[in-house]
């Protein structure tokens, strides 16, 4: 029996799906971790990026910081925090938030800072307050770039959550680690197929949300 058949058998076996260690539970865990990390990262990074973009200051700091964050290996942070902080969710969530902050901060900043200064000045000349300019002019104009950052962060998180199983947490990576331990290649393949499909689905949903949130005035240029 080859790997493809074995993988197929694993998928079609009801026992793989149900129960406390089944696919449904692992999927739910994976999505839960991803949502939590994305939520925290957005709350931390996006307001800072938007504000810096609005004031158009600190561009070099943002670029330097995101570059530095990108070069930090997430697996290294994950294992280091796991040893320092101990078992539980805090260590991996912290490591993943550090990973996700870079694209969010960079894109929130770039999106707002790239809005045509003439548009911003026009809004100011109309007597709009600074927060009104940010929320009704700059952020709507920045949605495509800002959302690009959110999608990128979501992809990186959903991919890296797989590694959380390495420090004895759940998620789809559990099947990978368990399959590796008993040399069951088909289970590893199955789990990574699930992870890839999940990433594709998540990105597709976010793309739809992005399209709904983008002002029609910004889309016209494309077609």
């Amino acid at each position: 029996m080859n790997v493809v058949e074995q993988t197929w058998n694993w998928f079609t076996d009801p026992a793989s799906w149900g129960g406390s260690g089944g696919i449904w539970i692992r999927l739910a865990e994976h999505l839960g971790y991803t949502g939590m990390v994305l939520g925290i990262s957005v709350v931390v990074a996006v307001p800072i990026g938007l504000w810096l973009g609005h004031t158009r200051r600190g561009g070099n700091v943002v670029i330097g910081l995101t570059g530095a964050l990108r070069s930090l290996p997430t697996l290294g942070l994950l294992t280091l925090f796991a040893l320092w902080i101990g078992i539980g969710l805090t260590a991996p969530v912290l490591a993943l938030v550090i990973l996700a902050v870079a694209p969010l901060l960079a894109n929130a900043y770039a999106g707002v800072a790239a809005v045509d200064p003439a548009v911003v000045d026009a809004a100011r000349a109309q007597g709009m307050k600074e927060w009104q300019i940010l929320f009704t002019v700059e952020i709507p104009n920045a949605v495509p770039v800002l959302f690009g950052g959110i999608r990128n962060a979501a992809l990186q998180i959903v991919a890296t959550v797989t590694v959380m199983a390495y420090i004895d947490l759940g998620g789809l990576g559990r099947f990978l680690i368990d399959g590796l331990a008993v040399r069951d290649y088909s289970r590893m393949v199955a789990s990574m197929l699930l992870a890839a499909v999940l990433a594709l689905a998540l990105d597709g949903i976010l793309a739809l949300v992005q399209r709904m949130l983008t002002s029609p005035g910004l889309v016209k240029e494309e077609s």
Partner: protein
Amino acid sequence: MTWLFHNLSYVGELTWLHLLQSVLPVIIGTVVSIPVARFAAVRRSRGAEGAGGASRARAGKARRGTVVNAAALLYTIPSLALFVLLPLVLGTAITSLTNVIIALSLYVIAMMVRSCVDAFESVDAAVLDAATAVGYRPARRFWAVELPLSVPVMAAGLRVALVSNISMVSVGAVIGIQSLGTLFTDGLRRDFTTEIIVGIVLIALIAVVLDRLVALAAAVATRWQVRS
């Protein structure tokens, strides 16, 4: 620190493996991405196209969309999934260097194609027309005019891909692929933070040094650029 000195040859070997997996895929990925992107890039504002210009422009746009979307789709797949799934297609062992290099190359292509397309499209069409007008043939025009002019945007994309790849290499350690990431899995197993910190510092160091090298090479390749 004493741990590092006692294990210099071990760390050195892992560093070498890490460098190999960091640099080779980026070179392969770039070499593949440039022709693909050149094929997909749409030149804007080209005056008289003659008969069929409009339909050709539409075909060009469709081609660009297909290539860019395919790259985006590839980027969506987690790297760990590529490591595990690729052997099904290639028939290699998961931990073999060939498998890792090909998986990471695919990932670099996914990141680079988009920025290479942008790079070619950043070249002013008038400059290319001028080159043709003074007698450059297509091949020479590409090497002497178009490619050099697209270096700045391309280099920016290359640096992002390179740095991301260097940190991504370490993830392979989870399924037993040797690199500096092995220090993380080993350190965790032995409850030994020094080993992990050494790994993080070395990886960040490799990222900084290679990133500076690419930036420097790009600056040398674009001496005509006005620098502030």
